């Protein structure tokens, strides 16, 4: 009789202890990551103007596929694109940059893209941008001078916003890869209401700038 009692004591104690396993993340925003990297040889302080398109492109693969032949990629829903572009423009202004038209010889060009695939395409095709920046550049894609972007793969329905700042003077007709002088990546779960996702995008882009003090030129 007594030994049965002790068996139950042991069983109950074990279940009680094992079931206390910690939970981890509870909300989508708990899984948000903001990564930035830059070329430390690039003199940001010598630059003043930037240009940025009014749309955010949707990247679906490393190679630009154009089934309808209009040379235009897919675009991100304007609600999300506005959240991305507004946050970038506000931060660039507060960091001392002046936005100019792409035809006004900007010092740098900022290209914002998004993807909801499980891969993050850091090396996607330049032709995604040819609709906006018809430079005649025989460019292939991108390279990251002096640093490597991380390559992540995950099985979740993750969303990624990729912001690239390129040196405009490097976009030349002779081509090659375009150097990305600053990269910001926001990665998280592509889940939640529109309001919640746009708020997370804004927070993430603010964080990207706050952890990149070298962008401050004023």
């Amino acid at each position, binding site marked *: 009789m007594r030994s049965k009692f002790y068996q139950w004591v042991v069983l109950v104690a074990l279940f009680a202890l*094992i079931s206390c396993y910690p939970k981890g993340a509870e909300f989508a925003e708990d899984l948000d990551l903001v990564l930035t990297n830059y070329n430390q040889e690039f003199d940001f302080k010598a630059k003043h103007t930037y240009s940025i398109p009014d749309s955010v492109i949707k990247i679906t693969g490393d190679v630009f596929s154009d089934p309808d032949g209009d040379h235009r990629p897919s675009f991100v829903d304007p609600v999300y694109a506005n959240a991305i572009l507004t946050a970038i423009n506000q931060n660039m202004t507060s960091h001392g940059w002046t936005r100019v038209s792409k035809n006004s010889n900007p010092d740098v060009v900022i290209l914002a893209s998004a993807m909801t695939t499980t891969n993050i395409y850091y090396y996607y095709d330049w032709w995604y941008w040819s609709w906006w920046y018809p430079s005649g550049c025989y460019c292939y894609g991108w390279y990251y001078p002096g640093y490597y972007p991380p390559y992540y793969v995950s099985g979740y329905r993750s969303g990624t916003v990729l912001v690239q700042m390129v040196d405009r003077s490097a976009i030349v007709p002779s081509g090659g890869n375009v150097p990305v002088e600053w990269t910001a990546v926001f990665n998280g779960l592509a889940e939640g209401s529109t309001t919640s996702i746009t708020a997370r995008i804004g927070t993430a882009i603010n964080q990207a700038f706050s952890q990149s003090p070298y962008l401050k030129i004023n």
Partner: protein
Amino acid sequence: MKKIALAVTVVLISQAVLAQHNSFTISYPIAFPMGNLHDYISATSFRGFNIEFNRRQKPNLEFGLETGWQTFYQREESKTYTSGTASISGIQYRYTNIAPILAGVKFYKPSGKTEPYLGVGLGVMYVNRSTDFGLYRITTEVWPFTLRPEAGVLFHFQPGVSGMLGVKYYAAFNTDDLDGQSYLSINIGVVLSH
């Protein structure tokens, strides 16, 4: 299912050991991370269990085996980690699961209703350190050599049933993949013996 299998196994083993006139101890450890483990997770762990099978060779000498499980966990609020030119920000969920597998010896000072003891254990520790960062998990698994001194007191309630209160210090040595992990646990438990 795994949990049920584990619990049933423990009960069966404890019965087998009791049948051989030895003792079985189950205790609840409250563990305080120290050293490198503390640098990674500073929070006290209230998640764990510890079991021992011991054979008393002489009134003051006991040999035994010990295992158990201890889970250390901490949510690290959003911070920016910088390496070279790269910076990454986010919340980290840090876990360290530890299962010691040790052989030990205890020296008792029999004194009526209470028996103070000192002991030392040697063996290995399974250490699984996982960091959840965004949607990604970085895991390191090692089996370091481990030394575990301990001290405690047995309280004899009635024949075959004692209580125990003890302190164990687990010191795991460095491995190539992970620096030494150490923690101190305060254990309170029951000792069943024949």
